[in-house]
């Protein structure tokens, strides 16, 4: 212990050199440890969400994009499938199905249009309020509530789809009727609405505001036989209220309304096999197993990780070479000190320790720092990954 004291005193005396070495070694250890842990956390997070989503049906295209869009709400521009596909699945009796419309955002949070079955399937329970009960209602994930400081009774405006689209519909001002309990999944980051609400945001369904009769006359800028122009006191967004809810309606064939995907929960293995076969031969639909897609993706990640491992071996070797050089130079500089200690009566073990003690203490210190940084980093990353996945 007393020789350890000498080591610490020497490290403190050379504190700038010690600090630089400590940081250099910490960094060399942190990066590979951090990446390993991060990938492990990423894997856990991805797999957990994928496992809880047995099958997804969507338009033919990238299975990965379909999975990211429908399971992780990471918005991708994927093709749609008609609502009739969902009805067909329900009617076939092979599986329970949950429709998903995930395309729009509100304050950058994905708006998930779905049915109440989704909340049951994901075990989402409102911690305050209720699930969306009528069009225009929204129940928000816990992270959305926290980030945007929203509560039941507040409103949330959907983001405009494209400001240069002159045919665009107005954003929808949604009423927040509930906040879901934290689930540490992508659901925390989403705004949940009824499927019809999502279609209204898309412009498929709409209501009518009685500009001609109900808007104050001072708001009217110009009135012709076929057109009324009003000033900006008339809100430039749509809001579904008790007074206008009856006016909302949809045009067209509902079975052709768009969905971004359908969660499919086969009744048994046989049903799953039949559905697999059906979608295998389909030209414009696909049914994916998120777990298989995730595993395929993770295989690529692990290959990249192995490459990084190789790089880190070389970096570690170079760092160790530098540390050895510093150690040798240090021994050279301290040669006279060691000779004096030998004369006074220091044992060989003490002298050996004094030679390598600096490096040993720095390595231990750097390892602890690396582990601490990795733990903190991964904890943050895990939270983020949970939210994403």
């Amino acid at each position, binding site marked *: 212990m007393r020789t350890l004291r000498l080591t610490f005193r020497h490290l403190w005396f050379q504190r700038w050199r010690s600090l630089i070495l400590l940081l250099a070694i910490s960094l060399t250890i942190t990066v590979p440890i951090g990446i390993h842990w991060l990938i492990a956390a990423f894997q856990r997070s991805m797999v957990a969400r994928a496992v809880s989503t047995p099958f997804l049906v969507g338009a033919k295209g990238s299975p990965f994009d379909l999975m990211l869009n429908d399971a992780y709400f990471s918005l991708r521009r994927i093709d749609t499938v008609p609502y009739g596909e969902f009805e067909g699945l329900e009617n076939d009796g092979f599986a329970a199905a949950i429709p998903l419309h995930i395309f729009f955002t509100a304050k950058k949070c994905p708006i998930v249009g779905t049915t109440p079955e989704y909340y049951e399937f994901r075990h989402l329970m409102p911690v305050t309020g209720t699930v969306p009960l009528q069009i225009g209602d929204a129940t928000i994930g816990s992270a959305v509530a926290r980030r945007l400081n929203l509560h039941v009774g507040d409103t949330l405006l959907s983001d405009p789809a494209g400001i240069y689209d002159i045919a665009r519909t107005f954003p929808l001002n949604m009423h927040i009727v509930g906040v879901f309990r934290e689930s540490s999944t992508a659901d925390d980051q989403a705004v949940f609405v009824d499927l019809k609400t999502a279609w209204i945001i898309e412009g498929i369904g709409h209501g009518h505001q009685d500009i001609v009769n109900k808007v104050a006359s001072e708001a009217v800028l110009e009135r012709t036989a076929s057109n009324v122009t009003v000033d900006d006191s008339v809100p430039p967004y749509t809001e579904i209220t008790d007074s206008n809810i009856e006016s909302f309606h949809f045009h067209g064939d509902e079975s052709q309304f768009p969905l971004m995907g359908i969660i499919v929960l086969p009744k048994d293995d046989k049903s799953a096999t039949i559905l697999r076969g059906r979608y295998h031969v389909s030209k414009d639909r696909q049914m994916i197993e998120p777990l298989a897609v995730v595993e395929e993706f993770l295989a690529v990640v692990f290959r990249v990780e192995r490459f990084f491992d190789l790089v880190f071996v070389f970096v570690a070797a170079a760092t160790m070479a530098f540390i050895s050089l510093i150690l040798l130079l240090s021994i050279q500089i301290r040669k006279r000190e060691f000779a004096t200690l030998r004369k006074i*009566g220091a*044992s060989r073990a003490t002298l050996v320790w004094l030679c390598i003690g600096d490096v040993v203490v720095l390595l231990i210190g750097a390892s602890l720092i690396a582990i601490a940084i990795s733990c903190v980093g991964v904890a943050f990353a895990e939270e983020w990954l949970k939210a994403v996945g």
Partner: protein
Amino acid sequence: MIVFQDVRFRYPGSDAFALDVPELRIGEGEKIALVGPSGSGKTTIVSLIAGILSPERGSIVVDDVALERADDSARRVFRLRRIGLVFQEFELLEYLSATENILLPYFLDGTMLLEDKTWVAVRELAARCGLSDKLDRLPAELSQGERQRVAICRALVMKPKLLIADEPTANLDSVNAATAMDILIEFSRRDKITCIVITHDKQLLPAFDRVIDVSRFSGLRGAP
């Protein structure tokens, strides 16, 4: 205290220098000055006494310990606990404070307890060497004279039986040299420590009981 009998020493691989000491006796508490020209073997003879070097033949007994029979580890422990060494260049550890430098033998001997009385002894020792207000300072913050006094305290802290000083005043001005010698002589008198000092300074010789010219033991004058 110290008995050399029929001792012969040569540096390995060197035929140019040899030290032959047929007989040399130094009594307990004696104050000895070792003199002789450079290369005559003064440092070699104290290294033999301290057990740092081993003779080619003959017997060296120090404080009833036959050094030629002791292994390296035993000689090391003997040196650490019974011999205080003072060097010409002080050889303080630059990263330790004066107190820590004084306590260095304790740091090197893991079996010796650092008790409260040890700290008291260090403070008393420092006070007698005029270092009371310098104990927290690093060697770089001390004058040459103060550094040598710290080195003397380090040599004395284990209460040695034998004090060996290799030209302790060579790097000091006359005032500091006199102070350092006074401290060495005073402590060796008070505690009956056998004191061997290598010196070239003839003015210091009267302070010693005996002066030994080492050149009479060396085979070849002027060798290393």
